[in-house]
């Protein structure tokens, strides 16, 4: 007993020390370096000499005065809202479906979901790109020659920004649904059956039961999933960059991530790139802080 009292003061700190050190090394240092870079003029010349010149907040000023930045921000916010919304709705519907179906179908569905989740984005992009190819794609073939819904022969799905992002959205949502479905399904099994039964006896209809009983109990889970999805979709890079194509990225279809890539890496202007990264970080933090706070409050109440 005495040993415990003596150690009491420092042991918790000692125990947490390795984690703090690891975090400082893998997260703290890059962020320190990013901030440092964002305050420097750091182009190709500086890269070769490994030495930048401090210019205060000039990089931030340049970015915030770039009209493209504001267009891209708006586009990215809309893109994120649509993608997160679709992912959450379709994912939750999937989970509700899983509850109702027989064990065999559930097994089949879950396997399918895990396979989708396991597919690397780059591979998925290749498959999508192949399916939607204007000359040889299976999508145009099915629409035109099998379903006869119209003439989609050699239809270019990447012609307008809207069409491009419809394709990207379908890919991103498709890839994100499994995580939401499986997590919500797991949470659904935690909803006490007595509550649902009681509501049924009281005469509540399916939608009412879902809204007032299931969703209320579940709430912390969709909250968490939404805030995670916001963080992912706001910064999504692989799908838009590769599906639309590196050679098709322009100021009229950038998302935040591709804008950052072209301003920072494409133009070899790493100071500007770092400034955009920090702005992006701040925006994502601002967007998700609302959710995180509500989530914490819900957690406390429960």
């Amino acid at each position, binding site marked *: 007993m005495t040993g415990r009292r003596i150690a009491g003061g420092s042991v918790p700190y000692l125990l947490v020390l390795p984690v703090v050190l690891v975090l400082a090394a893998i997260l703290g240092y890059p962020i320190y370096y990013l901030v440092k870079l964002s305050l420097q003029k750091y182009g*190709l010349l500086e*890269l*070769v000499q490994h030495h930048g010149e401090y210019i205060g907040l000039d990089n931030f000023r340049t970015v915030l005065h770039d009209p493209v930045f504001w267009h891209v921000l708006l586009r990215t916010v809309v893109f994120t809202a649509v993608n997160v919304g679709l992912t959450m709705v379709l994912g939750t519907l999937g989970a509700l479906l899983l509850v109702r179906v027989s064990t065999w179908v559930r097994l089949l569905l879950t396997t399918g979901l895990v396979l989708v989740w396991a597919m690397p984005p780059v591979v998925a992009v290749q498959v999508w790109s192949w399916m939607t190819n204007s*000359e040889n794609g299976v999508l145009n073939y099915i629409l035109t020659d099998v379903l006869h819904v119209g003439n989609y022969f*050699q239809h270019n799905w*990447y*012609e307008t920004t809207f069409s491009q992002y419809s394709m990207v959205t379908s890919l991103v949502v498709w890839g994100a649904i499994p995580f939401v479905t499986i997590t919500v399904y797991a949470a659904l099994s935690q909803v006490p059956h007595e509550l649902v039964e009681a509501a049924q006896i009281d005469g509540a209809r399916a939608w009412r039961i879902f809204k007032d009983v299931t969703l209320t109990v579940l709430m912390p889970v969709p909250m968490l999933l939404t805030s995670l999805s916001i963080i992912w979709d706001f910064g999504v890079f692989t799908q838009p960059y590769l599906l639309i194509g590196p*050679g098709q990225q322009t100021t009229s279809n950038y998302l935040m991530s591709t804008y950052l890539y072209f301003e920072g*890496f494409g133009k070899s202007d790493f100071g500007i790139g770092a400034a955009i990264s920090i702005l992006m970080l701040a925006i994502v933090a601002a967007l998700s802080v609302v959710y995180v706070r509500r989530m914490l409050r819900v957690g406390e109440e429960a």
Partner: protein
Amino acid sequence: MRYRVLAVVAAAITLSAVVATTAPSSKAAGHTLTVWLQVDAQNGWPELVAAANNAFENSHNGWKVNIQYQQWNDHLQKFDATIAGNDTPDVIEMGNTDMTAYMAAGEFANLGPYKSSFDNSAKWLGGLKASSTFDGKLYGVPYYAGSRVITYRTDLFKKAGFAKPPKSMAQFQRELVKVGKMQSHVKGFAPMYVGGEDWFTALGWVFDYGGSIAHKSHGKWVGTLASKKSLAGLRRFKAFFRATQPRSSARLDGTNPFPYTVFSQGRTAANYGPAWYTCCTGKKYAKVVGQFVMPSHTKGKPIPGFLGGSDLAVPIQSNSQAQARAWIADFTSTANEKALQKKGNIPNATSLLGNSVNERAAARSWFVPQAKHWINVQTGNILKTFLAQFLTGNLSVKKAAQVADANIAQTLNEP
């Protein structure tokens, strides 16, 4: 006790694994020369790369060449990352439009003192030599150049009654339309497969009508795509593009599928591109593939073609610069350059020039403005956006050109 035995076994396994993984690498005990080449070499002339590697490895005992093939789209971003990590390749292939920014930043080793060690260096092509020279110093070795030619199906043109190559752009367009009608039973057939956003193609029309992209006046760059002559060329290009594409909107990006793939599938009668396209037009059509020089709107002249090309440079971070130079000398040997020429490229020296279709097409050529920030116009896809805007009809040719001029001036005049 059981645990101790387990621990010993685990340690033994780990140890043997370490020994096993280190043994083969210690046997190699040599040095590696890392070379970045573009995929063009991998697709078009891998045997020439192998020949240079053999020659180099035979004369450098214990050295191995590690060729890493790159894509044009992102090789510079990857290169920047290696510069940041001091882990650059020893030799890098640079597009002639990419060189200026990196030479200005001091990224490449000065090759001037070793110039005579490269074959034909006294007679290098002027255009390529200029792209490798900055402030009077030599930072690159010309590798090869290429102009653009028409690759076409001789059988289809003959069937339509055209035995000889056309003399003018208007005549060519009429022939293409006729071939297109003749082949209308082939679904999606394009008499000529052109990517509308392929600015290397489209700007040929601009230069053919005496126009230009940008010029420097009073120390400032000014975009000139909205000039009268440039506009005449752009309008002519739009008409040509519209007349030769079955559904032009689908054809903005001409790289997916690639032009020669469409050719090999029998769905086009002509491509406009590098002469080495014949590599991949398909076995089925091997006997009916011909090439001619794309005619100008002025009868009897070729259209000005983009003089593309590559240089080989040695990054200053390389620890094996002498070996890097030796490999470049092997790779650009007279024998290799002659073989490159046979593949449909323009060799790197005037002394080797012949009378191929490619070399005749190069008689009239154009090049991008020699501005420090030109590369940002390319990576920002400014010209592709511009072409898409007026080819789809979203903007008039004039309006699109004015927007492009403003974007180009802003990019090139950045400090």
